[in-house]
């Protein structure tokens, strides 16, 4: 038994004798070491659970009923029994609250407290708020206190209640009774709602700076204001109070300074100029604390450390500002920082972990400030040495923090070299630390200290660590290795080796960005292309290699296989057979990439043509059920058989170099590391790079790029890669080989949900314009058929026979009358047939007639809207969709679209001004369908939530579908 265990056992033994503590487990301040003996400590609790054990003595006023209830709950054997007991209690409380007999304050307090307990157990509470509010006006302190606690925990946005609560708070704030004022301030700080900010943000600064306010009230007021500032910064205006608030740093009462400094720090971050006088005050306060003897500050000394919380906060406040300009102030501050660093070397005044934690908390905060200033080489190097000592400390916590702190130190030019001297310790930490979060810190630090001089060592260590690394950190490790390898590559063969190793060791964690990047670099640097081809060829020899390896291999051999074809061991056919042996194990995108590699092989090595054509011609390719694979097989087969060698050479020319740009991997890492660090553009760019690289994996991707991407010129000008084969818009050789197919314009109908006029369809021959108007359940549509060619269209027919002839360049008009009989979801079809230069053209279009065209807008007041909204509460009457914004979230554009929808856009209905609500009635011959709509944009997430309620379920559903595509 260790010493601690003996002590604990004694403690438990003794507790058995003490009245009121029978069988209770104690947990007086256990150090980390004693936690290990907790099995022993646990036993008495197990035993005691069988008894209905309540503490015999309860501090303050006991509520016996509450204690009995809690102990009942604890004795419940199952979840069901607990729920049953709770329901019984809820019924009891409800009847007590509803009963005729007025409850006395004590009972009310007891029941409210029980409700609170039930809520904290995780059950819903839907009554008792009013009783809690009543308690606020009790003249008994404990009743008031319980009332406030209930309100603090169970805030209800019920506006009626908020007003009552605010009234009670107002009374207590003006009571001049400091305990009541504190209770009220605590409540505001705990709830922190906007309504409270509106009511009290003006009053609290006055209380904070008033000369006759008690210290304890000042403390509460300061932090209360901080909380309100965090939720509603626009409502908390310090204005004239600013300088008096700053001067709270000079207050005699340490508690007041401690509370006030949190507020000042927060305000300084937002308005540094207005609060900059706090710097010299903070420095002098800090200097007084740092130089005080350990007993000077009495109760503010914590385990022989003078005012650790206040010291940390002072150092934190100073980090909101640059180094002080005033030489004297700066000198004093540097002195403080030196003293703090010196104290770290002194022998500890206590062996307790609390002493060292408090002392080191100040030290780490001081180091943060030194790093923030980044201007005192001497201090930076001292900080680095200090952290170096911590790297080998026996406390895991200190090792963790030292690694974390050194990471920021590594980026300073003054201390980068000093940090590098600890490389061996850090590598050791990566290998031997037992806690994954510490290893993660070590990996971060290695990444931060890496430069040209140690890159090879660090990358090698990280790679070898990767083999055993935790799954949770592998992806990030892979990204970091990839970035370091690229950034510090002197010879690119090392880079290629590293990335291929990365794929071999952790292929599953190698994201697309990583393997795209290696291909980009190989393509851009001709000195490494031969080496890359040779290395991937060797890597592919492994019987089981990762699919990412096949991708890189396929791409690189397709481009540069010729560079190693001279060696009979890697002759063209050997290369092809090697790649094709992997084909059947791969996913569709990889197979598509391999097919592109094969067609490139035909160009590089004419002798492989017949073998490859054989493969392409096989049923498993040319009749593949996957449309992309089938299309590639068909197109490539056709291309290889009809195109001349010259054409083939032009089409399948080597990929041109990629434009230099920021590594997409870096962008990805930034994204992982924190939102806001990288713009969406960069990431999209990464994706686009992907599109061009893997040979246009998806047809949709290519045609979706409407704005010219930085790579567009690359595709258009050199017409090299087979990528273009897949893009219908490219208009290159390949496209002409096949007839233009595809009913892709069906989607055009969605463009007309919010507007009535526009171009419905257009190709090289024909343009169809549309104009339409609707009233009630009737509509009229004008169709304009324009012939864009100079040749006549003959026997032009639509489902309704029209003019049999449209002259070249001419336009004819068709009018369609529409009547809406009942609600519908499928639009009517329009079939058009005509002859153009002898060829029969056949076209089927959906007419842009959607249910919303028959909307009659309905204006209504907020009250009516919510009443009707509630009336439509059947689950099937509501349709809801949450979707990503496809367009910029511009309020005016949204408004225009909603108006175009045909409903009335109602202002001042939704309590949230960002939201839109609309109302309208759909007129059909059979019935009228009232519909309400609510659209909630979330600008931050770039998402919308759309809710539609209408009296007919099919209508809600259809409207929701139509609209979800509009925004």
């Amino acid at each position, binding site marked *: 038994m260790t010493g601690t265990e003996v002590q604990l056992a004694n403690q438990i033994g003794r507790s058995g004798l003490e009245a009121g503590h029978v069988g209770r487990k104690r947990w007086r301040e256990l150090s980390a070491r004693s936690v290990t003996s907790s099995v022993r400590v646990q036993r008495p609790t197990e035993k005691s659970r069988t008894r209905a054990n309540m503490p015999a003595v309860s501090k303050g006023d006991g509520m016996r009923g509450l204690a009995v209830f809690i102990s009942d709950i604890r004795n419940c054997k199952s979840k069901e029994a607990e729920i049953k007991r709770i329901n019984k209690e809820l019924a009891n409380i409800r009847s007590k609250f509803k009963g005729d007999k007025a409850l006395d304050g004590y009972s009310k307090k007891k029941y409210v407290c029980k409700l609170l307990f039930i809520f904290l157990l995780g059950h819903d509470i839907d009554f008792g708020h009013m009783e809690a509010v009543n308690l606020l006006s009790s003249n008994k302190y404990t009743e008031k206190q319980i009332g406030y*606690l209930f309100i603090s925990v169970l805030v209800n946005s019920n506006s009626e209640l908020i007003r009552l609560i605010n009234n009670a708070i107002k009374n207590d704030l003006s009571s001049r009774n400091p305990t009541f004022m504190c209770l009220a301030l605590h409540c505001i700080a705990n709830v922190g709602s906007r309504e409270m900010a509106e009511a009290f943000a003006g009053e609290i600064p006055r209380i904070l700076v008033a000369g006759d306010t008690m210290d304890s009230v000042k403390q509460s007021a300061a932090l209360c204001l901080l909380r309100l500032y965090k939720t509603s910064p626009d409502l908390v205006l310090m204005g004239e109070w600013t300088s008096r608030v700053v001067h709270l740093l000079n207050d005699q009462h340490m508690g007041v300074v401690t509370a006030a400094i949190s507020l000042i720090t927060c305000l300084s971050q937002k308005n540094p100029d207005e609060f900059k006088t706090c710097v010299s005050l903070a420095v002098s306060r800090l200097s007084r604390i740092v130089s005080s003897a350990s007993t000077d500050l009495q109760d503010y000394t914590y385990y022989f450390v003078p005012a650790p919380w206040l010291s940390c906060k002072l150092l*934190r406040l100073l980090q909101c500002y640059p180094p002080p300009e005033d030489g004297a102030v700066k000198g004093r501050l540097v002195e403080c920082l030196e003293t703090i660093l010196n104290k770290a070397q002194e022998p500890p005044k206590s062996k307790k972990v609390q002493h060292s934690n408090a002392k080191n908390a100040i030290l780490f905060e001081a180091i943060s400030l030194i790093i923030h200033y980044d201007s005192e080489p001497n201090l930076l190097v001292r900080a680095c040495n200090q952290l170096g000592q911590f790297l080998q400390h026996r406390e895991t*916590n200190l090792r963790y923090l030292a690694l974390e702190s050194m990471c920021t130190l590594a980026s300073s030019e003054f201390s980068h070299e000093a940090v590098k001297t600890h490389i061996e310790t850090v590598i050791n930490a990566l290998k031997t630390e037992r806690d994954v979060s510490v290893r993660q810190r070590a990996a971060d630090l290695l990444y931060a200290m890496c430069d040209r001089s140690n890159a090879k060592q660090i990358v090698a260590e990280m790679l070898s660590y990767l083999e055993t690394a935790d799954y949770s950190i592998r992806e990030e490790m892979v990204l970091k290795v990839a970035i370091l390898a690229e950034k510090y590559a002197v010879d690119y063969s090392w880079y290629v080796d590293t990335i291929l190793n990365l794929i071999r060791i952790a292929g599953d964690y190698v994201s697309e960005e990583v393997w795209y990047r290696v291909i980009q670099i190989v393509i851009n640097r001709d000195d490494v292309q031969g080496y890359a081809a040779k290395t991937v060829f060797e890597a592919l020899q492994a019987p089981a290699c990762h699919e990412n390896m096949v991708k890189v291999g396929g791409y690189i051999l397709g481009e540069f296989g010729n560079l190693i074809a001279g060696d009979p061991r890697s002759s063209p056919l050997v290369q092809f057979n090697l790649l094709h042996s992997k084909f059947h194990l791969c996913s569709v995108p990889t197979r598509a990439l391999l097919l592109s590699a094969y067609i490139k092989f035909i160009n590089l090595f004419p002798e492989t043509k017949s073998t490859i054509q054989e493969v392409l011609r096989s049923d498993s390719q040319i009749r593949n059920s996957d449309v992309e694979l089938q299309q590639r097989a068909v197109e490539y087969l056709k291309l290889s058989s009809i195109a001349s060698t010259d054409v083939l050479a032009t089409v399948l020319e080597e990929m041109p170099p990629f434009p230099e740009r920021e590594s997409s991997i870096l962008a990805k890492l930034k994204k992982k590391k924190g939102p806001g660090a990288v713009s969406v553009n960069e990431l999209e760019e990464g994706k686009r790079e992907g599109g061009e690289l893997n040979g246009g994996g998806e047809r949709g991707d290519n045609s979706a790029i409407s704005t010219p991407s930085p790579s567009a010129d690359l595709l258009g000008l050199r017409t090299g890669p087979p990528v273009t084969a897949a893009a219908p818009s490219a208009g290159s050789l390949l496209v002409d080989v096949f007839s233009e197919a595809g009913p892709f314009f069906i989607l055009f109908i969605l463009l007309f949900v919010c507007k009535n006029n526009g171009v419905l369809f257009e190709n090289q021959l024909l343009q169809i314009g549309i104009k339409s108007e609707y009233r009630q359940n009737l509509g009229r549509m004008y169709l304009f058929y324009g012939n864009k060619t100079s040749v006549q269209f003959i026997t032009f027919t639509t489902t309704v026979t029209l003019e049999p002839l449209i002259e070249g360049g001419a336009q004819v008009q068709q009018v369609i009358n529409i009547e809406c009989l009942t609600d519908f979801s499928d639009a009517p079809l329009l079939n058009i047939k005509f002859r153009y230069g002898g060829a029969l053209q056949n076209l089927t279009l959906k007419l842009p007639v959607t249910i919303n065209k028959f909307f009659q807008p309905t204006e209504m007041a907020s009250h009516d809207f919510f009443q009707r909204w509630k009336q439509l509460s059947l689950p099937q009457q509501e349709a809801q969709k949450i979707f990503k914004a496809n367009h910029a979230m511009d309020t005016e554009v949204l408004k225009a679209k909603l108006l175009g929808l045909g409903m009335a856009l109602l202002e001042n209905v939704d309590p949230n001004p960002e939201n839109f609500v609309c109302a309208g009635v759909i007129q059909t011959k059979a019935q009228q369908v009232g519909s309400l709509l609510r659209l909630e944009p979330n600008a931050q997430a770039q998402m919308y939530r759309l809710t539609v309620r209408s009296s007919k379920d099919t209508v809600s559903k259809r409207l929701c579908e139509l609209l979800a595509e509009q925004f």
Partner: protein
Amino acid sequence: MQFMLLFSRQGKLRLQKWYVPLSDKEKKKITRELVQTVLARKPKMCSFLEWRDLKIVYKRYASLYFCCAIEDQDNELITLEIIHRYVELLDKYFGSVCELDIIFNFEKAYFILDEFLLGGEAQETSKKNVLKAIEQADLLQEVSTQSVTSEHLCKCIATPQ
């Protein structure tokens, strides 16, 4: 600090204090996730971990875990001592505190916390001062205040403005 949670080794939540506005659903989700994460950690591991974009600082006292979520720039070690000071306050108030004290007198545990931390920041770090405030409140319980205040409030409730 964004929130503080106290839970037992069995994963039962004993105290929760939230300093940022969150829905009940989110609170429950966070609690579930964190309790699981922290309970899965071994005794000798370090007391800090990264979780979402927050830093979690936790410490175990016998059967109870104290767990705080702080922001990126907050100091981990001083937060560890915030936890310890709170334990000391509970210990002093209840006289050798144990988990049962917190279960049966949960409201007191909340009151003590409110005197010590407010809005997620330290309000009063002196043990003596915090306990003085709590004991004063305990003494006050039966002392009635001027009835003017409550009469005035009753009027307000009767006639909503």
